[in-house]
């Protein structure tokens, strides 16, 4: 005789959730062989679009709730004809256990989107308890609060990912780096444009033209934030654009090299026409003009020129960005597991130094050496 167990309401809800779970069981094998109990317990700081962006790649979610809580990410993360089927790549080995946002309601919404319902924390101090890693998300901020947000984790030795820009000033960037070193805590920072496969694909074409003399990146630093201007009452300039400007610098350094020796800058918009001179002798130009009128369009373009000719990338935009995120997540995982910084801190601090140098150059109309900025 079989006994039919009566489902209570909460079990039914769990079952409903598992429908989605089954439908979206697309995760590949955990390459590190992590069992569930060994998953990295992650604290997600700031429930903005980037938190959802990375979140849906590391944690199963309810796509239909995602549609309500963040329709932008839902649009990019799901099948066009099946809104309940997630299509973004997955990175196993993480579990978001805590979330925080200065607006608690946002944290609550984020929590209900994901199947394990990470705990929305009211107090920020709580975030650094019983976790293995911290993820400070930042979609369009200037990075001005990163130092403050990272501090509790760094002091407790919790490996921390800080979304781009690493900081809004070189002073802040150095302070974070110093704190991380003091507490022997690894920190990692990345723009999607530093790890995006579309950039690698374009780089592979460099062989076609040999040694490059001039590299060009058409960025979105001016445009995208201009589109945002209509939504903000106060439009401050560089700070409002930093989230986008850093992407252009990241893509340029990814494609053409990190050895930026000095910069020059001109134009009306902050960092509108940015020239970077590389120690290799290569000249790199980043254009942060306002050509994108479609508010959510943010395609980058890159070109490379040499004695043998020119090559041009296709658009590197939202559809391409997605594939940079899993790479960043894998690096975060490695950082948490090894407790070591995955890349030298100087690599991402230099990007902030470039931004700061370019800003000074544009204000004063002079060439600014990166080494001099570091000496200040």
């Amino acid at each position: 005789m079989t006994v039919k167990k009566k489902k209570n309401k909460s079990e039914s809800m769990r079952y409903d959730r598992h429908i989605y779970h089954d439908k979206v069981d697309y995760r590949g094998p955990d390459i590190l062989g992590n069992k569930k109990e060994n998953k990295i317990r992650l604290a997600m700081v700031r429930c903005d679009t980037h938190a959802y962006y990375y979140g849906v790649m590391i944690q199963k979610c309810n796509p239909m709730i995602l549609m309500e809580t963040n329709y932008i990410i839902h649009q990019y993360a799901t099948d066009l004809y099946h809104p309940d089927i997630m299509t973004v790549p997955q990175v196993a080995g993480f579990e978001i256990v805590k979330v925080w946002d200065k607006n608690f309601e946002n944290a609550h919404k984020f929590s209900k989107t994901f199947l394990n319902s990470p705990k929305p924390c009211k107090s920020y101090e709580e975030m650094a308890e019983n976790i293995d890693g911290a993820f400070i998300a930042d979609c369009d901020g200037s990075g001005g609060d990163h130092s403050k947000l990272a501090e509790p984790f760094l002091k407790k030795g919790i490996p921390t990912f800080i979304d781009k820009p690493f900081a809004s000033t070189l002073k802040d960037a150095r302070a974070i780096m110093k704190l991380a070193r003091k507490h022997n805590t690894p920190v990692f920072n990345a723009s999607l444009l530093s790890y995006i496969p579309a950039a690698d694909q374009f780089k592979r074409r460099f062989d076609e033209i040999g040694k490059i003399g001039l590299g060009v990146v058409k960025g979105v630093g001016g445009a995208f934030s201009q589109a945002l201007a209509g939504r903000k009452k106060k439009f401050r300039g560089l700070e409002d654009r930093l989230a986008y400007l850093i992407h252009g610098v990241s893509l340029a350094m990814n494609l053409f090299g990190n050895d930026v020796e000095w910069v020059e800058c001109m134009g009306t918009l902050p960092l509108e026409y940015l020239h970077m001179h590389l120690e290799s002798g290569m000249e790199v130009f980043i254009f942060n003009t306002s050509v994108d009128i479609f508010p959510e369009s943010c395609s980058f373009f890159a070109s490379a020129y040499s004695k043998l000719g020119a090559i041009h990338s296709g658009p590197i935009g939202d559809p391409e960005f997605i594939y940079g995120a899993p790479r960043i997540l894998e690096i975060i995982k490695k950082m948490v597991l090894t407790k070591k910084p995955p890349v030298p801190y100087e690599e991402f601090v230099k990007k902030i130094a470039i931004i700061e140098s370019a800003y000074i150059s544009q204000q004063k109309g002079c060439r600014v050496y990166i080494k001099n900025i570091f000496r200040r």
Partner: protein
Amino acid sequence: MKKIRVGIINCDTHGIYYGALMEKHDPIILWGDPIGHAVHMYFYTYWGDAKKITVPTVNGFQITKVWDKNRQWAENMSKIFYGNPRVCDNFQEISDDVDLVFIADCSGDGSTHLELAAPGLKKGIPTFVDKPFAHDVKDARKLIELANKHKVPVMSLSILREIPHAAKFRSRFTEIDIPKFGIIKGGGDTMAGHIHAISLAIHLFGDGVESVEAMGQTPLAFVYLDYGGKPNRPTSGVVLNCASGPTYHCSMYASAYSEWGAIHSPNIGDFEFPWGAAKILKKIKDMVRTGKPQTSYNEMIELIAIAAAGRISQKEKRRVDLKEI
């Protein structure tokens, strides 16, 4: 129809270049000439026959006189044209008994052009002044004043202003609607190169530049042209990347961007330039026949003003309005 008698001042690469497109010449002597050799390379690309020209030529011209401050160059050039052009002792002689004075200039900065053009203009001889028209706006204005005073046309054009390959690229702009931003790659660090880059920008994106900014480690390395929000002009302007490193046979490139995407030109270089030169020669012929310049004086001055504004901007580290110039 009677041929246009041409007196050529400066027997540099451009003198021979344009000369070889307008007049019969000995390709083997051209090939063996230290300056003409490069011209032969791009005009005779049928490798199986060094005497078979492969670029468009323009008939109706007869080179009757040549002059160069290096007399040997003038004599060498005359030999290329079967010894027919008479080598003059001074440039003032060039404008006697000719229908056209052609001041060639491959890589100069244009600072001698007023002096070289003045005798011919005063004699009422239509004059073509190779690029740059002049080194500064003051000289450019004087040239036009002189031409107006003597009721004679003067004209200056860069190959990049006329090259059909650029026009074909421009016709692709419909793919992205009106470009909101443009890039020109190429030009180098000389005034001669800068004018090419500026000319290509004007050819593709239009005239009417209002202000200029420049920076970089070499003269006019990176130049920003602002159209001041004029309709049908790139709202985010055009940037000239003159400090562009090595390039394929002097190739220049252009890119245009809008909210619809990006388009990029193919190489526009030495293998394409002859088509632009031929187009210029046709315009010169029209100028001589009609007695009218085939391009606007305003544009000729604008090109020089842009370069001059760029130099000031780079020196004084500020945006320079063309009205200042």
